């Protein structure tokens, strides 16, 4: 990706009518996501959820779903307690970001996209805790937002992007490879522009830009490597982009792995097979959360 090509796409992305200012509740929400769980202001969350009728309805439906024991949850507050803050936040963010893309513009199934994003968030946080990364909530947020450039691509290059996704599907190749070939840039480049436009923190912006090119990350190297590995794991465990990517991955042989081990030596002893099976175990919950937002 050369600098000139990047400059060519910048005005196109900036001029997008459908790329308005950051949705009103995303910023306070990301602030909540990043505070330690014991310091989260629950009243603020109740307020944010209540602010939006659709989101409140999603939360209530989720709290009353079989996965959570079909309680008779009638208020937003009790739904929040039934689901836990993290699930509420995932629903909120999913709803907000989903509204950015009109339903006729999606180049791929939005449910698949959000399952992947949420899966990556959960795996990033889990891995962060396992290796002693100091800010697991940051890892969660970075995992949730890492592919945000795909929203830009689907909005700004709808038809081209549809062809690009179809080519990836037909060839069983990674989506960013197909983007390079068909668009000349990837969701990492367009995602970086959106992240800057929305004033994401520098480390999350680095994750968005470099999660397929870990070696190029500078200050947020470990976080980028962490999300890169979680992204790969999700794509390998049925939480990918909804098609078969023909790949065999030696995760422990990845350069991202080596980079992370430098900072967190305990990773070298991680039981990767067990982590993989744990991800499989989380599938039902991920599917339930995403379906709560997207299924009518």
């Amino acid at each position: 990706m050369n600098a000139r090509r990047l400059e060519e796409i910048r005005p196109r992305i900036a001029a997008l009518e459908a790329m308005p200012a950051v949705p009103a509740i995303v910023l306070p929400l990301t602030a909540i996501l990043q505070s330690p769980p014991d310091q989260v202001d629950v009243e603020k969350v109740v307020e944010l959820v209540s602010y939006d009728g659709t989101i409140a309805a999603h939360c209530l439906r989720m709290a009353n779903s079989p996965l959570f024991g079909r309680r008779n949850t009638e208020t937003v507050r009790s739904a929040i307690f039934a689901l836990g803050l993290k699930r509420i936040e995932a629903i909120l963010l999913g709803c907000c970001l989903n509204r950015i893309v009109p339903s006729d513009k999606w180049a791929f199934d939005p449910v698949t996209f959000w399952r992947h994003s949420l899966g990556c968030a959960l795996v990033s946080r889990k891995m962060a805790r396992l290796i002693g990364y100091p800010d697991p909530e940051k890892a969660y947020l970075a995992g949730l937002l890492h592919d945000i450039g795909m929203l830009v691509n689907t909005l700004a290059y709808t038809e081209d992007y549809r062809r690009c996704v179809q080519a990836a599907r037909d060839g069983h190749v990674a989506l960013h490879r197909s983007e390079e070939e068909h668009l000349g840039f990837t969701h990492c480049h367009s995602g970086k522009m959106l992240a800057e436009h929305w004033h994401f923190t520098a480390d999350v912006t680095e994750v968005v830009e470099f999660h397929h090119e870990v070696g190029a990350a500078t200050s947020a190297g470990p976080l980028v490597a962490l999300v890169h590995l979680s992204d790969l794991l999700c794509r390998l465990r049925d939480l990918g982009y909804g098609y078969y990517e023909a790949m065999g991955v030696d995760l422990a042989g990845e350069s991202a792995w080596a980079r992370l081990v430098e900072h967190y030596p305990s990773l070298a002893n991680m039981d990767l097979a067990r982590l993989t099976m744990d991800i499989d175990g989380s599938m039902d919950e991920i599917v339930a959360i995403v379906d709560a937002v997207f299924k009518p």
Partner: protein
Amino acid sequence: MATGIAKSVTESEDLRDPAYLKIRDVIYQVSGIYQPEEKLYLLASRCARRISAVGAKSPAEYLEHLTVRGNREAELRLLLNEITIGETYMFRSPPQLEALRKVILPQIIKAKSAMGFKRLHIWSAGCSTGEEPYTLAMFLLEESEKMLAGWTCDILATDLNDRSLNAAKAGIYGEYALRSTTEPLRKKYFKPYDDKQLQVTDQLKSVIRFDRVNLNDDSKMTFLKGMDLIFCCNVLIYFDLGSKRKVMQHFYSNLLPGGYLFLGHAESLYQVDNRFHLMHFPGAIGYWKPPVGYTGGGKL
């Protein structure tokens, strides 16, 4: 009393019993079979029968049967039998076959073709009543006119148990074993046996050589060389750590560089062997013996 316990463990209240997590960890430590926390209800239902059989009053008491009582080894074996029961049927793991078709075989074919070899050797170690080797045989025959055109392929299927081996050789299967076998494949590779069962065709049998092999028998294991793929599902779970390590050493030398070992879907080799590389494929994991000179670098 016993029925009451069996019934109650399926209720979510009892799943919160920390004894189940401990039982899970004991099983993992001893056998390498892992159940994620979200799937503990499966473990609980498998434990229920053993809990009532030994007359334990709670999961915690049953944990004692697995850890401190004199018969713990026998009890653990009985529980493992419960856990792996029903694991065997044909086409048990489609993602594993997809990984073979889309990633592994193209890679092996490329590497071996470059050296002028066109033979593929597969070993089903602990083949039980034959479902696994016949699945692989169907897979190979289906590919024999596609990517394996011009290749000679064979499957060695071994087991310790003579009765299992005889059943495997006979190749007679009912609906349970065939539940994931598609109609076209049934028509192509099976013939009617009686009202309820089908028998494999001679063509399918011809791909496989059956033999009795004890994986603990060093002298026999040493001679089984040149394998491209080894499948060993839910066999090592019954071995102690020392025997597991020895079998893994054998498997490592039985495999050609670039070859793969596959275990049961919930089995892990963590802390058993560090020479194999854990490889992830979509929906499947395998253990890889890298070719000489491999220095890491991730994706294939």
